[in-house]
């Protein structure tokens, strides 16, 4: 692989890892629950992009993992194996997106209920209110 | 559930399904029929209010005539007008929002006229008052503020055709 493309591949990997770490930072250190939820969605998306890159093939021509004939011969299958990308990460990402959406909606429900009880989503203020009510 | 009511929605749904699937195999047509019947029955109540209107071929003919008029006469005129304004070095625009009364009564006709106004360049419907029967239209060249004359300039030709189609 030429040098510039090695550099670009490393750059993409670095970016996705950096996104992962920044979203972890958001989950741990941002006091607002909405920002925590947003960080978790960013975390999920970063993982999905990372898996999509893992499945990519650096060749030309490259094709999606779908056979276009309904009665493939052995020759068709050999050609298919030469151009098709890795389908396993795609399958993982496919379900992860929808399940991630359901889990995020559950977190939103919980956050909404927290807001109804405490009238705020800031964890510092919630802790304060809890301390006051215990006294 | 009224089956007659859902004939037009079923047809619409079937055409969309087959066009989106992009093939005419037995599988696509049979699943298309099933999906179209389910979707059509679900949406028949909210899409169709008057059965005889929805099945009238004369109205369909008027709709096709209106489509020809709209795409080949009204649109061309409006585009030429805006092109002239753009190419003119003085840029003779006088934008503003005017009240435009309308006289059509059915939902689809109101929406059709509004859509026609929006899709022609130079005019955009930004709000509607159903009780006073008024569109609020942003117009590129406010030559008059009198509602009657505005109507004549902006939407009278559309209403003339769409009354025959939907009212």
């Amino acid at each position, binding site marked *: 692989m030429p040098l510039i493309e090695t550099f670009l591949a490393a750059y993409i990997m670095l970016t996705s890892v950096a996104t992962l770490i920044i979203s972890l930072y958001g989950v741990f250190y941002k006091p607002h629950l909405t920002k925590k939820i947003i960080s978790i969605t960013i975390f999920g998306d970063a993982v999905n992009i990372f898996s999509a890159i893992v499945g990519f093939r650096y060749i030309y021509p490259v094709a999606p993992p*779908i*056979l276009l004939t309904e009665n493939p011969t052995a020759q068709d299958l050999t050609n298919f194996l030469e151009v098709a990308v*890795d389908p396993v990460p795609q399958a993982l990402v496919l379900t992860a997106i929808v399940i991630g959406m359901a889990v995020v909606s559950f977190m939103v429900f919980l956050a909404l209920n927290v807001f*109804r009880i405490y009238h705020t989503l800031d964890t510092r203020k919630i802790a304060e209110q809890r301390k006051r009510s215990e006294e | 559930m009224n089956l007659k009511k859902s004939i037009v929605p079923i047809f619409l749904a079937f055409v969309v399904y087959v066009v989106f699937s992009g093939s005419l195999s037995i599988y696509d047509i049979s699943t298309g029929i099933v999906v179209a019947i389910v979707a059509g029955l679900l949406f028949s109540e909210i899409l169709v209010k008057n059965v005889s209107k929805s099945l009238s071929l004369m109205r369909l003919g008027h709709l096709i005539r209106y489509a020809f008029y709209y795409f080949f006469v009204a649109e061309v005129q409006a585009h030429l007008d805006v092109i002239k304004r753009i190419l003119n070095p003085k840029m003779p625009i006088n934008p503003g929002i005017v009240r435009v009364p309308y006289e059509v009564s059915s939902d689809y006709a109101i929406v059709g006229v509004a859509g026609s106004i929006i899709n022609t360049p130079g005019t955009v419907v930004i709000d509607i008052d159903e009780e006073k029967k008024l569109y609020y239209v942003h117009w590129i060249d406010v030559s008059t503020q009198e509602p009657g004359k505005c109507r004549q300039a902006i939407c009278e030709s559309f209403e003339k055709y769409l009354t025959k189609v939907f009212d």
Partner: protein
Amino acid sequence: MNTKTVISLLVIISSLLAISYAIADQATGVIPQTGLRNLASFYLENTLNPSNKSYWTASPEATSAIVWDYRGFDTFFETSVFYLAIVGCTLVFELYEPPKSKTTKQTELGLTIIVKVITKIVGILIVCVSASIALHGQLTPGGGFQGGAALAVLPILFIITMSRFALDRKVNDTSMIIIRALGLCGIGITVILPLFLGFITNNNAYIIQNQMKPDALVSLPSTIADKMMGGSLWMLNVSEYIAVGAGFTLAFLLLSLPERSFKKILEEEKYATY
């Protein structure tokens, strides 16, 4: 710095190190790869192989084949995660009496008539397009998850443009729970179906089996009309489409409940003292 901050910092740094080590040590292989991993080439070679049917799935779409056949058990449990998330949503927002609209006039609810009529027309198109995505999951990119997610756009559009109360007669919490349960039942039946077939024909059979394996000669139909069907892939896609669509509709219906109904309950239960 308190202990919590230190622990979070340690977690972040250790995960950074772990991911970096994994990539640098090529645990994921060279990125981007030029060849294929062994697992991928096995799936791609066998998904639609008429000459060697011992591991085939009768579906030209390798991704769908992995999702519902080769790794079908994973997806089965992912579906149960989805199911539990929606169950959690309904439990958190449990209301014995759903609120009624203050006005009965439809014109006072939601956006202007232009938006409403256009949304109605777009609604029927969304149903058709999402059904097409789900029903062609075994042939082209798409399937139950994607079709269901596309269908879930519909309730959002309707709730925003016409308000939740316009939906209440046909589309309410109870009917959505029933429809979602039907979809999940479809998945359950498809999963157990090979066992029944094996029992009748006196053969070995596995759970979530699709086409015949060397030691289990039970297989679900491989074609439907004139297209490849992929046996259980088609049935599972349709069931998942219904389950995901209805589940998300339920979640959005609950999210759009007006605040006033909860205020009343919270005041009654004296949560509001905090």
